[in-house]
């Protein structure tokens, strides 16, 4: 069904990813007329469920929910529109080739002969990290402060953050300042003995990024991921969405429509029309033009500026920053349709629904990262595995299962190209899995690998990057996506950037979308109609 396109919208939102939808809904609430234009045939963007083999469906990009902001769910009444978790607070089990696995719960450890010392250290470590997350979370729910033209609100926000940090007390404050900049490898060595435990925690700090445990500021990556333990829906820990992550997109689209938002799927934006430096609307690939005084792009910053705005329309210092945003994906997705219940060596059936990790120690992760620096994929890759059909029988036929794994490292710019590299990498992944799951090959009905290039093509994310741009200290807060465009507005009047590429960043959070809407609402002067 095609929505009839009205020419008089207050706001056009490009992209029905979860951020675009959160933003659209927030704006519609204030009475603005909003339309969302989405190139794909379903809403959600990288929150997607795909039937990759007959009757086998999977969360085909993001698979774990751990950061979705509570307020997105409540403001949009998502629970009334079909959003539901099929499991929450899912433990993480780090697989060990010997079968002596370690299970990490949000508050305790089990297995792998983990010592009492490590158990105690784990408690105090998570407690301290949670305190730090709490401090940082304050900065996530608002626009990042602008350090150049300081507004009163921004100064207060900075002061508030400073106060929060001070209130941590002397020891914690010193630790935060120190840890924020160093690498997770050293922090793990300081705190723990057990290899599996160190690997499990350090993996959280590098998922989705082009970093290894020894890369600088990986501790921030850990804190970023665990921000969900402060405000995440279903917290603490990791959840899965019933019907797959695509169901989040679907429910958000339903909710947005109920709030008056028009959504047009299968409609691709070709460019943003601009008069000098003022936005006029968007032009679709089919030639139609939609006029609006405000355009919000939830596509990534490179797509937005390079394709929609056009580099020729940007001043040089802005375009230089656009070009320099680091956003080459390093994560791939592997989907397998299984003929029966999987059987991992030494793993109790009751643990099959866990988040299963192949990352036996930190050296393994670091060595998996090394080749990607030189354009090669890992020969011993890390895997973050989900068997969602354990919690959600609707994803596979009775008695059958789906296995979905986020795999690192798979560099976007693979030497020799992914066309040649894809099959060898897929074979390697299946061999690697088979070491822990010997019966795998006999159970495979079908397998699908999505490389960063596939993710780029399928989900229209430049570089196939998880966060629409690396999360590292030079690309966060007022530097996200780059200085000058860090408060959602851009050098083009009326054009706002939302989406994972903006503050606070990627993952399924919805905060970028909400913050963008807040920013637009606070700049009432832009309102048309």
């Amino acid at each position, binding site marked *: 069904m095609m929505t009839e396109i009205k020419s008089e919208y207050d706001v056009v939102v490009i992209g029905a990813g979860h951020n675009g939808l959160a933003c659209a809904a927030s704006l519609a609430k204030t009475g603005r007329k909003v339309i969302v234009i989405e190139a794909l045939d379903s809403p959600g963007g990288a929150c997607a469920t795909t039937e990759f083999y007959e009757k086998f469906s999977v969360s085909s990009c993001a698979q774990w929910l751990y950061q979705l902001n509570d307020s997105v769910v409540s403001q949009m009444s998502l629970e009334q529109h079909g959003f539901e978790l099929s499991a929450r607070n899912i433990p993480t089990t780090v697989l060990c080739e010997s079968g002596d696995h370690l299970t990490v719960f949000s508050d305790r450890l089990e297995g792998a002969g983990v010592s009492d010392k490590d158990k105690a250290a784990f408690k105090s470590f998570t407690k301290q990290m949670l305190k730090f997350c709490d401090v940082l979370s304050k900065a996530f729910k608002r626009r990042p402060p602008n350090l150049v033209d300081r507004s009163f609100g921004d100064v207060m926000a900075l002061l508030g953050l400073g106060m929060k940090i001070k209130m941590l007390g002397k020891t914690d404050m010193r630790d935060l300042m120190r840890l924020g900049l160093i690498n997770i490898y050293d922090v793990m060595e300081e705190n723990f003995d057990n290899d599996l435990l160190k690997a499990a925690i350090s993996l959280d700090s590098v998922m989705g990024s082009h970093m290894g445990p020894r890369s600088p500021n990986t501790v921030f990556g850990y804190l970023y991921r665990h921000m969900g333990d402060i405000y995440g829906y279903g917290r603490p820990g990791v959840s899965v969405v019933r019907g797959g992550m695509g169901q989040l997109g679907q429910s958000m689209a339903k909710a947005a429509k109920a709030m008056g938002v028009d959504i047009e799927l299968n409609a691709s934006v070709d460019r943003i029309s601009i008069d*000098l*430096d003022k936005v006029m609307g968007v032009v679709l690939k089919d030639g139609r033009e939609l006029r609006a005084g405000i355009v919000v792009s939830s596509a990534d910053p490179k797509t937005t500026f390079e394709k929609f705005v*056009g*580099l*020729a*329309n*940007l*001043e*040089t*210092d*802005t*375009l*230089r920053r656009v*070009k320099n945003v680091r956003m080459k994906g390093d994560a791939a997705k592997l989907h397998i349709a299984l003929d029966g219940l999987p059987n991992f060596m030494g793993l109790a059936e009751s643990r099959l629904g866990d988040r299963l990790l192949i990352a036996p120690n930190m050296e393994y992760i670091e060595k998996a990262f090394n080749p990607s620096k030189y354009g090669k994929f890992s020969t011993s890759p890390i895997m973050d595995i989900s068997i969602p059909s354990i919690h959600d029988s609707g994803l596979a036929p009775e008695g059958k299962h789906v296995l979905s794994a986020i795999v690192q490292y798979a560099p976007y710019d693979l030497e020799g190209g992914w066309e040649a590299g894809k099959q060898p990498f897929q074979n390697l992944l299946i061999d690697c899995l088979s070491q822990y799951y010997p019966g795998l090959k006999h159970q495979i009905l079908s397998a699908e690998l999505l490389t960063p290039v596939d993710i780029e093509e399928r989900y229209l994310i430049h570089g196939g990057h998880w966060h629409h741009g690396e999360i590292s200290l030079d690309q966060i807060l007022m530097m996200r996506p780059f200085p*000058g465009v860090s408060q959602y507005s851009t*050098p083009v009047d009326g054009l706002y950037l939302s989406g994972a590429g903006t503050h606070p960043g990627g993952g399924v959070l919805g905060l970028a979308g909400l913050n963008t809407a807040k920013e637009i609402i606070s700049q009432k002067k832009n309102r048309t109609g």
Partner: protein
Amino acid sequence: MIPHNESMMLHTPFHSRCAAACEVNLWEDWKGYTTPQVFTEVDMEYFAVRNSTGVFDLSPMTKYRITGPDSEAFINKLITRDIRKLAVDRVSYVLWCDGEGKVMDDGTIFRLSEDDYRLCCYTRALDWLMWTAEGFEVTVKEETADVAALAVQGPTSCAVFKALGFVGIELLKPFGMSRFKFSGSQVMVSRTGFTGDLGYEVWVEPSLAESFWDALFDAGKPHGIRAIGSSALDMLRIEAGFLQAGVDFIPADETIRAGRSRSPFELGLGWMVSFDKPVFNGRRALLRERAQGSRYAFVYLDVEGNKPAEHAFVYHGDQEVGTITSAAWCPTTKTNIAFAQVDAKFGRPGQSLVAEIYYERELKWTRVMAQCKVTKGALFSPDRRRQTPAPNF
């Protein structure tokens, strides 16, 4: 490898001739090239340009060649003026800004043909040009060393070229350019310069440089031709009111301290900013500045006395309101001229200010509080600079 007994400085294509003419052997570094500061005597060189013809080797001037179907659009994004108004075989004085609307450099653009331009400027700007070229179908190539250039300036300069056989050169209009046959090849001549006088600039292949110099000086002998160095040129340009990058403003990219760069408005060059054209670098910042006001004003000062007000502080009453960037006693206008940057409030023509000048004679420093008047514009601008056909002195 440069042999140890040779200078690391580059030589211009005219070096052998300059070296022969440089009687006082006084050289300086111009962006890596060694160039004469003075050939014989500064005043003689200055007067050659005002009374006959002076020749200045400007080969070290940075030159870029801009070609391709989007060259016009590219240049229009780079610079603040509207290049669409520039016809083929015409030259324009231009400047460009960074995103903060601060001047990065000034220079001249020559439109050689429909999609072929040459940009001459002070800084090495290839990085900025290449970044600016993103999104345009355009090629930017550095050609500093590929083109030798001489400024031939002064009242008899047209006569010198006529004697050289450049038929019709008197019809060349200011900021026009034309090609002339020379030695089986071609040289390009533009009616441009940095002296405010009647004058030309000649652009030749490096291989022709020496023979062109020789022919030019032969033809110019009866017309009082003389090589001039940078010291004389500095007096000339100050008298004519031309700003020098690196002296009267620091190219924005080279400033280190916050607030030290200047906008076109703050340099008295607001007339070169055209807001009715597509997006260009600095546009938003300059619009903001136009609405909110500038921090500084650029002024020409007529300073009492004859002590050049170099590096002087400028006062209004007891209040220090600015500093002087260029100053010279200018013999033709018989004025002690200075360029100053003052607080924006103090730029009105006719306003009286005071320059605090220090000078030294035989180890004795003297301080002069010299009265100054803000003048309307540059003081030297003779009719011959504009007349076409060019007068034949």
